[in-house]
């Protein structure tokens, strides 16, 4: 591979010719299908992610219809789903399958692969000044494994008994005993296979991101000059590489229990009055393994979204991100801490209560860096000169959701309060706001912001506005009332609330929520239309549509292999010199050397460079004395 040469800044020119040679030999197959170009792979991840998101959204509407009208038959459901909706009413087991696949697709396929896969691939080489990823081949493999995993996951709808049904957390014994529910049969097997492939894809991607970031930065791009997007992708990749293998371990043991008669997770099981031979395992063990990934996973989902919104908010407030260092340190803090809080998902599972106490302490510590990030976003907006591009709207939406959802984390993180909140709709509200809504908004902000870079065209702004407002309002209408359901003790993953007397009062609220969900889902048509239409017919994008400082906007609008014609630009400054006093435009690209901006340089710019700081002071002094002379 030529990648080592690529990172060698000096040989840019010669290298480029060599690349061009490649370019002309490209066939349709190597350009669009088995592409090794990070830009194309990013688009592949994005479009697959969008398709998966639409599918998962449709699934959620199906089960929301059930919750809104538990007594009513919908003949079209039977036509659509056949044996899974006999007589037009969802089968109870199929309801659980819908919930399971909805959760799995959203968390893993959309918000992990769709989000990190798209933007890490797109932005790491672009914003760091690399011609491609460290290993383009691994990168291609990563996408195709992800693709196969997606196909298998969706394929499970065509098995006789339907897809996996024990919830996205697939706790055994429910997931281990095919007798326990139809969704523990073939569908579950496919789920497990799909997830193993998925994790392989994540690992290939993650290793690639980490090595690219560490080794392939352009001249001048030291770690503290990296945009926060890159910091976020970097730490996310590390989290993924360390946590995902544990999920595979858990899954493999589960496969053994299911297929080879082992008892890692099973003990003393009598099912439907029949004895089994399982002996000596522990269901809690699986939960430890699952949440050891599962909790980092939620940060794998939110950190890239936070990185993207940092970038978008700074650019569109025309202000440096407030407390860049604090932002990086909070990300690092979150990364480290997220490995030691997983037990907060297990407070009432029978885990040793003393452990519960310890996990409660670590959990509430992780709320501190999260709070710091929020305050820093607010401080960035303060006295900004805010431009409301659609990307900016979604980034703002992220901040609002992150606050609303993060706050309920403080209730749940308290083991004592969690006794009554665990597995209720309060938890559903919490994670749909902080993860579902906030992370999706981060992803959408990224799509609107970097669409011009990806496709060379602009998306329609007005449709973007419409999309934002409907989705923003819709999401709050859907998830806010769920808090109260949780506080009334309404359990999640219930097929209907008509059987338990005290829960019947919530049916009307559920109807309301369903209609709000349908509204928000339909609003996505505005996005889909805008997205696909603009790919082909959007206005042509200018070089730097948002007036950004980062170096991806110095590449030509038309994609070329190797990103930059000629030499890769050198970076001289941090990415947040917006509205710097003394400079004529309101942004200074990272590629502008300080020697060209003497009037706007600040001591702050040279904090880590004493020599330049001295020079800067001298320059300021001479400036002052000459001013005096004039007077």
């Amino acid at each position, binding site marked *: 591979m030529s990648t080592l040469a690529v990172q060698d800044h000096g040989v840019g020119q010669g290298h480029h010719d060599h690349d061009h040679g490649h370019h002309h030999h490209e066939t349709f197959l190597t350009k669009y299908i088995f592409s090794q170009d990070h830009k194309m792979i990013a688009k592949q991840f994005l479009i697959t992610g969008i398709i998966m998101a639409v599918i998962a959204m449709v699934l959620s509407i199906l089960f929301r219809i059930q919750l809104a009208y538990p007594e009513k038959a919908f003949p079209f459901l039977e036509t659509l789903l056949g044996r899974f909706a006999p007589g037009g009413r969802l089968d109870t087991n199929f309801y659980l399958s819908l919930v399971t696949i909805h959760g799995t697709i959203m968390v893993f396929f959309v918000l992990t692969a769709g989000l990190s896969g798209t933007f890490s691939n797109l932005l790491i080489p672009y914003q760091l000044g690399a011609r491609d990823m460290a290993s383009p081949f691994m990168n291609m493999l990563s996408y195709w494994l992800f693709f196969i995993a997606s196909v298998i996951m969706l394929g499970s709808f065509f098995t006789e008994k339907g897809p996996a049904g024990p919830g996205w957390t697939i706790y055994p014994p429910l997931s281990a005993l095919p007798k326990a529910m139809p969704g523990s049969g073939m569908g579950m097997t496919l789920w497990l296979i799909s997830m193993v492939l998925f994790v392989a894809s994540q690992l290939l991607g993650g290793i690639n991101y980490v090595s690219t970031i560490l080794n392939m930065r352009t001249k001048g791009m030291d770690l503290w000059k990296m945009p926060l997007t890159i910091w976020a992708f970097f730490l996310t990749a590390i989290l993924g590489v360390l946590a995902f293998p544990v999920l595979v371990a858990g899954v493999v043991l589960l496969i053994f229990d299911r297929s080879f008669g082992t008892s890692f997770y099973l003990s003393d099981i009598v099912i439907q009055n029949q004895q089994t031979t399982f002996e000596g395992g522990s269901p809690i063990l699986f939960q430890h393994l699952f949440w050891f990934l599962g909790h980092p996973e939620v940060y794998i989902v939110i950190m890239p979204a936070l990185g993207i919104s940092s970038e978008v908010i700074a650019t569109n407030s025309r202000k440096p991100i407030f407390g860049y260092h604090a932002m990086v340190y909070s990300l690092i803090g979150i990364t480290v801490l997220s490995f030691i809080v997983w037990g907060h998902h297990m407070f009432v599972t029978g885990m040793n209560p003393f452990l519960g106490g310890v996990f409660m302490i670590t959990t509430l*510590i992780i709320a501190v860096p999260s709070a710091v990030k929020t305050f820093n976003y607010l401080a960035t907006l303060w006295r900004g000169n805010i431009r409301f591009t659609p990307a900016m709207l979604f980034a703002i939406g992220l901040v609002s959701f992150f606050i609303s959802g993060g706050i309920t984390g403080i209730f749940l993180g308290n083991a004592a309060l969690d006794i009554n909140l665990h597995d209720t709709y309060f938890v559903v509200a919490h994670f749909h706001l902080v993860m579902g809504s906030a992370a999706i908004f981060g992803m959408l902000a990224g799509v609107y912001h970097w669409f011009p870079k990806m496709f060379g065209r602009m998306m329609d702004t007005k449709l973007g506005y419409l999309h934002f407002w409907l989705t923003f309002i819709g999401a709050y209408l859907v998830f806010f009332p769920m808090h*109260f359901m949780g506080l009334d003790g309404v359990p999640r993953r219930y097929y*209907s609330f008509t059987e338990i007397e005290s829960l019947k009062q919530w049916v009307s609220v559920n109807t309301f929520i369903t209609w709000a969900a349908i509204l928000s889902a339909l609003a996505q048509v505005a996005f889909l239309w805008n997205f696909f239409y603009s790919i082909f017919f959007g206005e042509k994008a200018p070089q730097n549509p948002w007036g950004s400082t980062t170096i991806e906007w110095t590449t030509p609008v038309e994609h070329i292999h190797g990103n930059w014609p000629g030499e890769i630009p050198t970076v001289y400054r941090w990415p947040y010199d917006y509205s710097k006093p003394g400079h004529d435009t309101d942004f200074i690209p990272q590629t502008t050397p300080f020697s060209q901006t003497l009037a706007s340089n600040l001591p702050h710019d040279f904090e880590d460079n004493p020599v330049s700081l001295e020079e800067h002071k001298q320059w300021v002094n001479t400036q002052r004395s000459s001013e005096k002379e004039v007077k």
Partner: protein
Amino acid sequence: MFLLLGTNLVMAQATSSNATATDSGDTSAQSAGMWASVGYYTLLFLIVCVVVAVVGKILKVYDLTLQMQGRRGINWNNVMATGFLIFLIAGIIGVYYSFTEQGSMILGPASSVHGKTLDTMFWTTFGITFVVFLGTQILLFTFLFKYKGSDKRKAYYYPHNNTIEKIWTVAPAIVLTVLVVFGFLTWRKITNTVDAKGEVASLNVDVTGHQFAWELRYPGKDGKLGKKQSKLVSGTNKLGINFEDKNSFDDLAADTLVLPVNKSVRLNIIAQDVIHSVYMPNFRVQINAVPGLPTYFKFTPTKTTAQMRADLDQPDFNYHLYCNKICGGSHYNMQKIVLVVSQAEYQNWLANQKPYLSDQLKKELKLADNTLYKQYQLQNSLASNN
């Protein structure tokens, strides 16, 4: 824009032809009705799309004419900023509405001793976090409005301020520490399920979960529950009670979880097949039922069912125990009624419960020849003679 309209039409045709294609096999009137309503909603949506497209077009034309007349077009940036301000106000009203409307539907005060501590803790946490929630959201949206972009202004270059950053790191840390300490101590107290020395012994009740029901077992006169073993579970011995333990003989099977008020109860919980969860929100009680791993919850009910009925003015009110861990198709209907009664009523009820040891089980286990059982019977008859 016209293209957009055109494609809408094409889409409409595509959906309708799709509809007829799938429809053709099925001729019942019902399905015709169904497609009529599906078609109706599809059409409705398409009309909305068309209206949106037309409005978009009109706005664009309006904007262009303004510009041609040399005036400034619509300032969308200001429209968005105002939108956020409106959202803030509407949001606050909405939050208020939600709190009064749905907020009034939540659980009332806890009916258990530890639950009252939890309620205090909940409302303290709520008070603190709600202020933060409102404060940050208000700042967010007012900043958006106040600092909306204009060509005349330049943003204030303000990259960092270590003092401020330290303050807002330390402040949440302190608040959270307080909450954690409070929570930790309460948690330790609640999860301590062993009766301390000198404390009045708790009433032990056995709760076993399986798909999709709960089985209850009360101790007999001896006040002790006999041992259980999953390997002994069979058609007649549903819970797998071990009758080599003499405490088992007088155990009682019950249908309803009846609890005496103001007396400490310890639930001994286990599941047979998959994980379930014993959840009684009114008492702030929840713990999973796990196959192979016994779990416990100790609590003291403080309010009888009758009192609750009077207080809520709901004559049909009942406490419930329901499953709160996904466990299969009928997870949503795995419940037990819970009755909290006075001590006297409880004794009365208990006296009427059937022993777990059924006649058939006696035969199966050949208890007639069992020395331990004979001893137990002898003791029993002596006791009743006295």
